């Protein structure tokens, strides 16, 4: 991959991913649309432009790794991986059904091209750090990317990992916080505020970049800045909109973990046409 695309091409790709997300979750009758839609641009830029990977050779030892710590947003990951050629696009609508490779949370037993099984929040960053250390020990050039949710970083293990990463100067790993401001019970600021977020990561010794997580050129620049940052880990605080791209889902806590109805799907797909 790692080929700079035309901006319009990436935007079209993002729209296609959003349509998959809506169709998959509607068909499954359950799932997490809001946090899948908020992460689309980040995953698109990573998989289309930033990461060194080869869908025909998913276990290439020197491939870059991506771990979705917020495993409940797996529809976005499945759709992006399928469109890259890792797994079948036509089976995306089997999400959450018995025997599907597209399990309710990422599961390497069913989809071996996944880098980790996730779903219990707070563990992805630690696993990614282990991989980054292995890269260093093996003198392998691969880089590791971990996306965490803003609710997920309420888990204590995230901060154990954050402390570890700067202490060990893990500069071949990038964390991305999908800061969409909503978690299951409501707005993050009302459940357990994570602010001041950038200052927290900086205090833990990270190079923090705050950006609009739907701004593709800004994401490109941030990943380039992360690659050029040596001696410390980098975190992208990606300000995003939960439910991005579908008007009635945007900033609506209801769609953290609820599937759209058939009518809502039709409306959403019209907006994403």
């Amino acid at each position: 991959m790692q080929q700079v695309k035309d901006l319009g091409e990436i935007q079209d790709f993002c729209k296609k991913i959003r349509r998959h997300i809506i169709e998959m979750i509607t068909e499954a009758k359950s799932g997490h649309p809001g946090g899948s839609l908020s992460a689309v641009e980040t995953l698109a830029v990573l998989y289309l432009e930033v990461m060194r990977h080869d869908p025909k050779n998913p276990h290439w030892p020197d491939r870059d790794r991506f771990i979705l710590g917020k495993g409940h947003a797996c529809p976005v990951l499945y759709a992006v991986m399928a469109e890259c050629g890792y797994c079948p696009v036509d089976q995306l609508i089997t999400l959450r059904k018995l025997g599907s490779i597209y399990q309710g949370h990422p599961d390497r037993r069913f989809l071996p091209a996944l880098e980790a099984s996730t779903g219990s929040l707070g563990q992805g960053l630690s696993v990614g750090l282990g991989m980054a250390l292995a890269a260093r020990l093996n003198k392998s050039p691969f880089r590791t990317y971990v996306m965490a949710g803003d609710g997920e970083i309420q888990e204590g293990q995230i901060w154990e990992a954050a402390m570890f990463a700067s202490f060990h100067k893990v500069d071949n790993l990038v964390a991305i916080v999908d800061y969409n401001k909503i978690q299951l019970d409501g707005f993050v600021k009302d459940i357990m505020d994570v602010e001041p977020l950038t200052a927290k990561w900086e205090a833990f010794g990270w190079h923090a970049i705050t950006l609009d997580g739907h701004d593709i050129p800004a994401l490109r620049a941030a990943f380039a800045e992360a690659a050029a940052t040596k001696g410390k880990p980098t975190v992208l605080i990606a300000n995003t909109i939960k439910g991005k791209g579908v008007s009635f889902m945007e900033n609506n806590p209801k769609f953290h973990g609820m599937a759209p109805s058939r009518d809502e799907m039709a409306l959403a797909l019209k907006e994403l046409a």
Partner: protein
Amino acid sequence: MAATTKFDLKMGAATREAFGKALVELGRKNKDVVVCDADLSKSTMVHWFAKEFPERFVSCGIAEANMVAIGAGLASGGKIPFVASFSVFVLNKGFEQLRVTAAYPPGINLKVVGTHSGISIGEDGPSQMSIEDLALATALPGFTVISPCDEVSMTAFVHLAAEHFGPVFLRAGRPKVPVVYNAGQKFEIGKAIELVQGKDVTLIAHGLMVAESIRAAEILDGEGISARVVDMPTIKPLDLEAIRDAATRTGAIVVSEEHLVDGGLGVKVAQAVGRMHPCVMEFVGIENTYAESGTPAQLLEKYGLTAANIASAARRALKRKG
């Protein structure tokens, strides 16, 4: 695999010490071995490895949950990570991480070592005592669980754990324990070893209760009771043939362990016996409680983990066997 029958036990090294030494040998042999520590290297004895291989030693600070998942990531990257801490911390604080990052994804070659298991750690008291670690570790599908009884078997199992592809939990103790095996004894994961021959009752044990079972056999021998002693270091997968053999040949089994009776080796042996060849059974272990501070010897005595208590259990079993 029969070992030499002997009642003569000489004191040897602690299994944690044997683990620490074997880890250094293993590190020399295999460059992929990496060790993760949570600020207990001088107690778990991984400081010897740290001294010789600083570049392969990962200091995680007092953060066991993070350490376990880092180990899983290292394993994904092709390393053979040994994550070590007190058993009570690495399994209780790291349990969900073991479950999600090591047990349920396939092919995670992680080795987890819990030292200071059981109540024989003594004065530090129950917050540091791991009496439920085998119940937890064996509840992780795909894990191999091993509790060696002396320095010879621990040394062998450190190497066997590294050779085995997949997650392993290895249990070690704090105090010095008697040497049960002669140097050169062969071990296999999943195989029990008959230490003392006998025909009336089989005494099965792991960890430091193996030596106590040998002493119990000696007590019973004095009363004209012929007790077999079997060391069962692999708690999972169970050596079903050895269990069937014990049930059919002696018709009475006593399982002794430095662990809660609930969830320990005893209940697993009972399940196997129930499925294969029911016979009378007795259990010596910690009964539904936490221990306290004291010397190791005082605690083992107070909580019934003694040769005398194993001998009593054997007599009770034989009475029911008729």
